């Protein structure tokens, strides 16, 4: 664990020197690859979200199993108007249909985010990014460490300077969950809705219990990703918007320069 210890000590040293030296010579908080893939993913996420909502409103009903349509009982309905006449929503009007560009954009953004994600994952394993920055350190793998962090979050306590250089256990677990559970799940359920893809790999949809189940799970995972995004952005404001944005855009952290 010596390597982890040294990683955790080094940032403190960098922070203390950060106030003395110009920002340009400070070590980067995030590697260039992490920063670039982060913003490409952000852009794609918004494209996928907007186009996904556009596609969703053409049929805001969800089902479980293989098939579902206006003649079958839905699992649940969203209380919103639809962009198609076919769907009885209870509203007296039909929203404009934007599925053309939405579908094109959705799948293009999906390609970009998948290729970006692959680059991030592969390089992350090679550079030790996951072990170093995201896997909770041994000392943090306890309920006490966990509850301390949660208590701090509940008080909306501003993080210490050392935390500008390292993620706490809750952050680490959340990022790991988003990267290794939510993103793979949203890709899997997306592929499970492709009639051509499942013709080649039927297990993709059969394991989920059907094409409509895949669509419903796709929706819920997207909701979780949006929740993650909201909390992520709120936490950036709590921690110090300028320093965290600077760390993810140009690299240096230096939270003590926040008020300059």
């Amino acid at each position, binding site marked *: 664990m010596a390597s982890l210890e040294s990683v955790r000590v080094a940032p403190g040293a960098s922070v203390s020197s950060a106030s003395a030296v110009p920002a340009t010579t400070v070590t980067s908080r995030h590697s260039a690859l992490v920063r670039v893939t982060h913003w490409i993913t952000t852009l794609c996420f918004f494209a996928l979200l907007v186009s996904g909502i556009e596609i969703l409103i053409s049929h805001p009903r969800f089902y479980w199993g293989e098939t579902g349509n206006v003649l079958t009982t839905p699992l649940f309905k969203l209380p919103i108007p639809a962009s198609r006449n076919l769907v009885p929503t209870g509203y007296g009007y039909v929203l404009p249909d934007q599925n053309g560009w939405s579908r094109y954009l959705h799948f293009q953004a999906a390609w970009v985010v998948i290729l970006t994600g692959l680059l991030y994952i592969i390089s992350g394993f090679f550079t030790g990014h996951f072990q170093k920055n995201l896997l909770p350190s041994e000392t943090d793998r306890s309920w006490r460490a966990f509850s301390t962090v949660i208590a701090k979050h509940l008080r909306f306590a501003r993080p210490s300077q050392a935390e500008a250089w390292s993620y706490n256990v809750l952050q680490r677990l959340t990022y790991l969950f988003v990267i290794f559970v939510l993103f793979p799940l949203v890709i899997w359920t997306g592929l499970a809705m492709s009639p051509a893809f499942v*013709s080649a790999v039927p297990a993709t949809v059969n394991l989920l219990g059907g094409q409509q189940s895949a669509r419903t799970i796709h929706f819920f995972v997207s909701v979780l990703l949006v929740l993650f995004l909201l909390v992520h952005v709120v936490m950036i404001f709590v921690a110090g918007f300028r320093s965290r944005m600077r760390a993810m855009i140009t690299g240096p952290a230096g939270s003590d320069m926040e008020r300059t």
Partner: protein
Amino acid sequence: MSDLSRRKLIISGLAATAGVGGLGVAARMAQKYGLIPPDHGGLYGPGETLTYASQRVLTRHSLAREFPQSKISHPPLTNEMPPLNDAYKRLQAGGFADWRVLVDGIVDRPAAFSLAQLKSYPSRKQTTMLQCEEGWSYIAEWIGVPLSHVLDAVGVRPQARYVVYFSIDRDWWDSIDMADALHPQTFLAYGMNGNELPVGNGGPLRIRLPRQLGYKSIKFITHLKVTDSLKGFGKGSAAASAEDGSYAWYAGI
């Protein structure tokens, strides 16, 4: 210039050259093996090309999932559609006895087929899902003749690349590549769930492509044209460009 930066410059120069060259070779290979969709241009061209090319490689011999009879959706859904035109109504009044499907283009023996002729060919059944891009779906048993059988009858020439199919509604047409046209599950369907194909589901004749979304399975088919290019067909429900048509040409997603 230091040695290090010169080396960096040379290496990145070589990498860039290799990259551009690699892309050129990849593009030529993709063209040769039919991996470029007709709507490869424009803003969304790269995404469409990646989807089409990867699925053409992945799904070359794959069959759409077929379901047991117990999975058939009852009652079958009838999608909304534009009002039927007078030509259709006249044929409907005559029990579709005069319904013809003209098959022409780059074929050896252009011909017009009646429904009776199509039904005289070996009929096939498939219990597959019709999946709409809007999100809903249903499963039905489709009865018809494989399109490949009809194409064999007219003798498709080797340079054929697409089959364009037209509805009796003149603005409603679409097209598929030869890989899908010759796929064993691509039907000219005239029956559904043991009966004649209902009007609401495209009767008397619709195309069925279970490996693509429902909007490619056009209803009321009266004309098939075999072609080597999609240029000059004009705007359609899914014309071959993001600008002309509203939806992606390839709907295997």
